[in-house]
């Protein structure tokens, strides 16, 4: 329970808050993905900081690698989805994706 851990966790909360703000308010689909990416940064910082504070750095690093790999797969798929949507709607605006709206 040292001070460095609390400092790190404070910044983790800030990063996740910024990412959530981006996800909730932005209209550009690429910006939404940037929000997801900022949240992922917060999660990796939380893992490494906790591992460092509790002397479990090896397990924490292997978990970070898992998170990063999953993150890359998600981002690649989402960007491909955005490009293919962009070909149909000619826009990056998330408000124009109303085709499935009831």
């Amino acid at each position, binding site marked *: 329970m040292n001070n460095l*851990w609390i400092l790190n966790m404070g910044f983790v909360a800030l990063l996740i808050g*910024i990412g959530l703000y981006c996800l909730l*308010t932005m209209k550009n689909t690429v910006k939404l993905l*940037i929000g997801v990416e900022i949240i992922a940064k917060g999660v990796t910082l939380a893992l490494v900081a906790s591992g460092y504070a509790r002397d479990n750095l090896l397990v924490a690093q292997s978990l970070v690698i898992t998170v990063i*790999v999953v993150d890359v797969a998600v981002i690649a798929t989402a960007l491909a989805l955005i490009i293919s949507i962009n070909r149909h709607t000619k826009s990056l605006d998330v408000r124009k994706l109303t085709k499935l709206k009831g």
Partner: protein
Amino acid sequence: MHLFLLIGLVAFSIMAVLSRDLLKSAISLAVASIFLALAFFGMNAVYAGVFELSVVAGLITVLFITAIALTRSDSEVAESKRHLIVFPLFFLALAVLDILVMRKLLGQIPAIQSAESGTFSQVLWNQRTFDLVGQVGAIFAGVLAVLALFRPDGEKAHQDNVSEGGRHE
């Protein structure tokens, strides 16, 4: 030193969110990644730092810039200008809440046992084998998804599917 790295990380993340140009956003995100990797190196997490630098600051930035270049010619999305007023208020409230609550909240987390030995590769390959299988699955699924989305005649095949579905009904 660590504090400056974390402040840089948050500052460039904010810049990535608020910047109007998508390219600047992507590059700010990469710089934030570099700050995070340096913080990891400071905490002796070398492997996580190397991964953060090479994959997140390198590969994901390249993916973002490619996607922005492929969609750039089309119309820009007008974000509302209220962000310049609303975001500082939100950030201030978040920071105050953070300072007030975080220490008490973290005190409630029970201590986990910390007994680990061996090297990083032993932990990764022996203890977290299932995670590695999951990673391979995630990469495979991602590759299949990208291939499915970039089929050469995707639109035509989609229309065929739609008309077939209509016939079945």
